[in-house]
């Protein structure tokens, strides 16, 4: 099991051929209080880099891009009632959707934890 990050601040945690996708602690902090997440429906086929979800903070709507291609197999329905999970637990309860990976090679272009930490540091 490994976690990788996109330069759009999504994370993907891969177990077998399923990746769970969310946004990073840095991303949730930048967004501020999340009040609504529009998650994709199960069965939707997505490409790498496609806008698949929208996260609404009090101030603005932000697109969430899929860090890999595949088919959505589950969305986090609990976020409809508790969107604040994205702020409180972005790497855990605040996950957005699960994806059956179509092309495992998509993960190669993503950052590992150390590379992502350095990337975030470079932004401040």
């Amino acid at each position, binding site marked *: 099991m490994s976690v990788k990050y996109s330069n759009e601040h999504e994370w993907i945690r891969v177990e077998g051929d399923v990746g769970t996708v969310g946004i990073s602690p840095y991303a949730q902090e930048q967004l501020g209080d999340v009040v609504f997440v529009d998650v994709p429906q199960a069965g939707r086929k997505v490409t790498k880099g496609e806008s698949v979800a929208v996260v609404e903070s009090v101030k603005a709507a932000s697109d969430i891009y899929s860090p890999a291609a595949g088919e959505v197999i589950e969305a986090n329905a609990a976020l*409809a009632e508790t969107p604040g999970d994205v702020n409180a637990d972005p790497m855990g309860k605040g996950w957005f959707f699960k994806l059956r990976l179509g092309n495992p090679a998509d993960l190669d272009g993503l950052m590992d934890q150390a590379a992502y930490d350095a990337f975030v540091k470079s932004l401040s």
Partner: protein
Amino acid sequence: MSDLKRTPLHALHQELGARLVPFAGYEMPVQYPIGILAEHAHTRTAAGLFDVSHMGQVRLTAKPGHDAAKALETLVPGDIAGLQPGQQRYTQFTNETGGILDDLMVTSTGDHLLLIVNAACKDDDLAHLARHLSAACEIEPMFSRGLLALQGPLASAALARLAPSVATMKFMTGAFVMVDGAECYITRSGYTGGDGYEISTPADKAEAIARLLLAQPEVKPIGLGARDSLRLEAGLCLYGHDIDTTTTPIEAVLLWSIGKERRAQGGFPGAGVIQKQIAEGAPRKRVGLLPEGKAIAREGAEIALAGRVIGKVTSGGFAPTLGRAVAMGTVEKALSANGTRVDLVVRGKPVPAEIVPMPFVKHAYYRG
């Protein structure tokens, strides 16, 4: 952000951990560490302190043989001549087509008029005043002064501890009041729909007074993010969004702010257009919108009825007090009745919504 201007509270914002963003040429706090939702809730239940020093404060004093109120009435449709000393009124600078150049608060001190205008418009407003009122008035920009808004149900308790006379001030009145040894001009007004004050301070006392207010147990600092969600819940217009040079006060449902005599007599820019709209109705109307579900329709979203676009959302967001999305927008007058079912087009998808009266959250002004 080096080319951005700073208010007298800039260092305090940094000390408080604010997230600073560019706004109307200033570096301003959008939120503090507790976040917009908590700031909003605090302002609705206790007292929030906002730095609004970026707004433009202008003093108009009549030149000998002239009347400042009568002079200002040539630029605004509000009843300014009728202001008693200590009374405050909301009005707009209009253009020749009846559009709104800016909206503003005007207070008479008896001796002069104090204007509070929007930050993004203040330089243009000043030029506008100079062009039209120089013969009649001394026009003094007081852009370096501090302006603090203290808002919420406990604002009175907090401020009255420092300046007891404010407790009995009524909504939309103003007075010179000593705070922490400095002469301030305080009005009982604000932009949240709740009770509260705006405190104009000498530039060099703004930070000390802000710190004194923040030391009161009821008071927390609040950023521009919550200022926007609070005013949206209150159904109050934001210049440049809900109103601009293409919307008239009638379309914006601001007829209440136009004096009865002034409706009849005119004498302000665009009076012909505005009087005709008063008599015959305006083609468009600003309305409240309640979207179904959780999706948020933001500024620019189309408003459709049976597939036809009838208007646009001008402000939309999450209303923390209600725990749901709300919006306001402008629609064709003939289709603007409360209860009308429309669709708001959010990311290409229709979100059903209903036209509703505003405010979304009941006003709680102190009228004595």
